[in-house]
């Protein structure tokens, strides 16, 4: 079996999870405290990838990133970045596609914290950043772990978006889910089977971790 697609899948899932973690904390925090009128709009946009067929997202990203189009051409001319059929493009698309899996648990965790904790911190003279890092985030550890694991698992299971904008370039954009498809197309059933089994085990382990945490079985590690 060729391990490269599996390693690529893990690499994509890891990078996506890291990037989303950094982005989702300010976004979730803002969503949890804001009284702005545009909040429902932002929440809707964040959740869109949950209901949209991945091919739709992939299709528009493909158009946007294509060097034939204004945005894609601008990226290529100014920064020398080409997002279609590249790993960077995959990361960007995965981030959009997995955004709700990172944002929603963290936002729910933050909203669930008693407002008196934040108020107590502000009376003690702590600014918002201090309160976020010393009070809020440490108290939603299990939400954060859920968000991270789900994002990772969801990115591993990605297919449509990756196929649309990544294509099928070995070592660059051919992730495990694409490899399965590819092997089936060429009637290599046993190879497809091997990739699939690894993916099943991987998904089982990640989801199992989430349920162990949420069921309180790993309590001493999460608080």
């Amino acid at each position, binding site marked *: 079996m060729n391990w490269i697609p599996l390693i690529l899948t893990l690499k994509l899932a890891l990078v996506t999870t890291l990037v989303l973690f950094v982005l989702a904390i300010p976004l979730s925090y803002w969503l949890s405290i804001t009284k702005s009128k545009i909040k429902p709009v932002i929440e809707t946009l964040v959740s869109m990838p949950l209901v949209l067929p991945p091919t739709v997202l992939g299709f528009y990203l493909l158009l946007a990133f294509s060097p034939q189009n204004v945005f894609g051409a601008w990226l290529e001319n100014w920064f020398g970045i080409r997002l279609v059929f590249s790993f960077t493009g995959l990361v960007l698309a995965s981030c959009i596609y997995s955004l709700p899996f990172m944002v929603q648990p963290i936002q729910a965790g933050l909203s669930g914290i*008693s407002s*008196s904790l934040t108020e107590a911190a502000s009376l003690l003279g702590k600014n918002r950043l201090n309160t976020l890092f010393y009070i809020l985030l440490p108290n939603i550890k299990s939400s954060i772990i859920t968000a991270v694991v789900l994002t990772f698992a969801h990115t591993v299971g990605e297919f449509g978006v990756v196929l649309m904008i990544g294509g099928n370039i070995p070592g660059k954009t051919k992730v495990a889910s694409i490899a399965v498809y590819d092997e089936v197309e060429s009637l290599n059933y046993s190879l497809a089977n091997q990739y699939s089994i690894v993916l099943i085990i991987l998904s089982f382990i990640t989801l199992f971790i989430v349920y162990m945490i949420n069921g309180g079985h790993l309590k001493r590690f999460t608080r």
Partner: protein
Amino acid sequence: MIELKLQKSLRSGDQEMLLDLDISIKKGEFVTFYGESGSGKTSTLRLISGLVEGDSGTIFVDNDCWWDMNAKINLKPAKRKIGYVFQDYALFPNMTAYENLEFALPKYQDKAIIDELIAIMDLKDILNLKPDMLSGGQKQRVALARALVSKPKILLLDEPLSALDNIMRLKLQDYLIKIHHKYHLTTILVSHDVGEIIKLSQKVFEFQKGKIIRSGNPKEIFTHGKTSAKFQFTGEVIEIFHEKVIGIISVLIGQDIVKVVCDLSELEEFKVGDKVMVGSKAFNPIIQKI
């Protein structure tokens, strides 16, 4: 001196209510806000602490302006030097009792105050425990100590004792008296317990639907100045017996149950749960060591 002249419209349930206050509290006084739920007591504490803003009016403390709607002055909560004990204690669950105290220490302030508070509040044995390992009374003491770490001038207590059993309550009342005097605090307590109010405070403000309907010395307020008993206690009616010619009312005073005889006609005035004052005028009480 805290001078509070302000208005704020509040929403409790689906009812709109105007909180309309004109209160002044002397430096060093221990006062209580008393009144039914939703009458604006907690909101008043939140206004004083700066957690919420009023719609119009001013807050002056020792002639410094803390808040003025028209002049757009609004001193930040942290700058008001207030210790605040929340009803749910608001201890940080991710930190031990000691870390909670340490977190409250302002930058560059001497840590000695923490050790002092640990001694006063008897926290030595529970310092390394996290809040969910503490009992109600212990949480309360940690919350009280945490509120005092920054050496505030004003202490606001939002029904801090309501969730505790009687013995714990009495003990914590003593802690409150102790720290009020030791740190020369101006203390504002929200409480429903008449006995507690009479024991602790020098002045009571009674709230009703956002307005102060009465204020003054707690004893006078709650006994309507009617009795001049030599000897009096407050308690709660726990049982009422109809005997043939007289009524007997059991009253819980502190942890003791006292039976008081009364006329059958008087009996109708009372029901179980009423707060009452038990006093004696004509007899001299006997005192002996136990």
